[in-house]
């Protein structure tokens, strides 16, 4: 045990805690400063967590196989960028993107058809709601059997996982415009398609983006878990399951870091797009 490290970690923790308490009490009048403070508080919290993690791992000499220190994870990330990129390319660029596009696209199209046919809406929607709650990742072994070890089987899992949230949300969104607004469209003598494109789809956008956000996480999970069931020797899920078996826990953390980065960036991009598309929504109007 290394007391010097442990004590300095404790000191840093207390300092950061004190800083955050003071910062949280501030309520600056200047909006830019307020924003900076609100951004700085969670960042400091995150840094503190990493410092504590690093300090505990070093100070208590926690073995590498249990919990590698952040510094050794970072060293692993920088030293194996080639492998990480290859895995990312296989899992994200091929399986996730293809599956996400197909799943969300088909969910959207089916939702529009379902919306047109009330009978289908009554029949398909309860089933869609049910399926959205089911452990859909379970179909991974079947998809691997049908579509082979390479990325198409993972994309197929992602398609099935993303389809139902998109379907359910889009149908809910298409019902979001009020009857007053629809009546207004009717007084303008607009036909079904005009009402759809000019009123109902824009009104459905918050719901659709909600589904896209849910699906961006689901898609990554689906692709990674599907790789546990068989894959060529590349891919994030493959790397995680084999390196866990070889007790290279720092490599696993490196993959998790990449997955987290990919997940947050795609979520952020969707959120930015949402802001641009639904600028009219009350939650974005200052």
């Amino acid at each position, binding site marked *: 045990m290394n007391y010097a490290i442990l004590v300095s970690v404790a000191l840093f923790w207390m300092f950061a805690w004190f800083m955050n308490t003071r*910062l949280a009490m501030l309520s600056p009048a200047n909006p830019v400063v307020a924003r900076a403070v609100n951004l700085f508080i*969670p960042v400091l*919290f995150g840094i503190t967590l990493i410092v504590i993690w690093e300090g505990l791992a070093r100070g208590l000499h926690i073995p590498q196989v249990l919990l590698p220190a952040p510094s050794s994870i970072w060293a692993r990330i920088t030293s194996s960028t080639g492998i990480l990129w290859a895995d990312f390319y296989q899992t994200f660029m091929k399986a996730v993107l293809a599956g996400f596009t197909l799943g969300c696209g088909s969910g959207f199209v089916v939702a529009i058809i379902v919306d047109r046919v009330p009978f289908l809406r009554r029949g398909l929607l309860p*089933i869609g709601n049910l399926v959205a709650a089911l452990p859909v990742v*379970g179909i*991974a072994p079947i998809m691997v059997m049908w579509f082979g070890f390479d990325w198409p089987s993972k994309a197929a899992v992602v398609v099935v996982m993303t389809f139902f949230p998109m379907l359910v949300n889009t149908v809910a969104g298409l019902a979001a415009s009020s009857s007053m607004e629809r009546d207004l469209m009717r007084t303008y003598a607009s036909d079904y398609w005009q009402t759809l494109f000019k009123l109902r789809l824009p009104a459905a956008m918050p719901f659709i983006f909600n589904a896209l956000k849910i699906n961006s996480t689901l898609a*990554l*999970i689906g692709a990674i878990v599907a790789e546990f069931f068989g894959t060529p020797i590349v891919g994030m899920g493959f790397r995680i399951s084999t390196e866990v078996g070889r007790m290279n826990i720092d490599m696993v953390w490196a993959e*998790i870091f990449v997955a987290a980065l990919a997940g947050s960036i795609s979520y952020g991009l969707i959120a930015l797009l949402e802001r641009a598309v639904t600028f009219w929504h009350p939650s974005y109007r200052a």
Partner: protein
Amino acid sequence: MRERQGPSWFFFDRLLPIGTVVLVIILLWYGFAVLLNAKFELDQAARAKKQISTMELVQKTMAQDRPVLPAPHQVATEIWNTTALKKVTSKRSLVYHGWITLRSTLLGFVMGTLLGIGLAALIVHSRVLDKSLMPWIIASQTIPILAIAPMIIVVLNAIGISGVLPKALISTYLSFFPVAVGMVKGLRSPDLMLMDLMRTYNANRSQIFWKLRWPAAVPFLFTSMKVAVAISLVGAIVGELPTGAVAGLGARLLTGSYYGQTIQIWSALVAAAVLAAALVIMVDLVSRLVTRHMGMAQ
């Protein structure tokens, strides 16, 4: 449109449409089963240099040992055989494996819900925690947490913790997010007027919490618990994959995929689906009972 009521509403707006869709799905399933399994039978016939009639072909595609897609009745038979006809303690019983999974699901769900409620209560009462912890809780939603499931299992195994707890921890990890986020929203849902009213009563923090915030948050709690219970089942199933497929529904999926036992995979899938639906319905029932008891039923 004319509003239907009573039994006729139930028939026309529920039973008929849902029944039709389910029927179409089953028919499609049979169709695909014949289509996908036909290649194997045609190959067999060609190898034996025999001609088989279409009727024979269709019949054979539905009775294969390892079909590409088992027909619904094959899955139903397998489920019947492995639930009703096997002893519950038998390793081949689906009830046994389902129970293993259910156990860690429930343990994880309970721990996750308690953790989520606790965190939410802290966040609502502490400005520091709200500003520093909440962004991370939301950011962590974008991270594919399930990816760390194998690591948790193996690392905990390495330090001697095995059995139900590691899997339950994964479920906990997955299920506390929706509860924490929903409860923060719920505990903040009482509007300013109500909070001011409590203040005029000179209520202290804990009185405000138990008499206003908590009751107001109950509907939010149940909504997020429905999400949480479904996701903790997913966590338990995925948690069973890396342990080398010992027991549980996830293990059934994995051994099924190792040995090409498609019927076993499908029956494990159906069992998981039934379990998920039952859990969600149970939470829904409890929520109805509680909200009615609290006088909040619509």
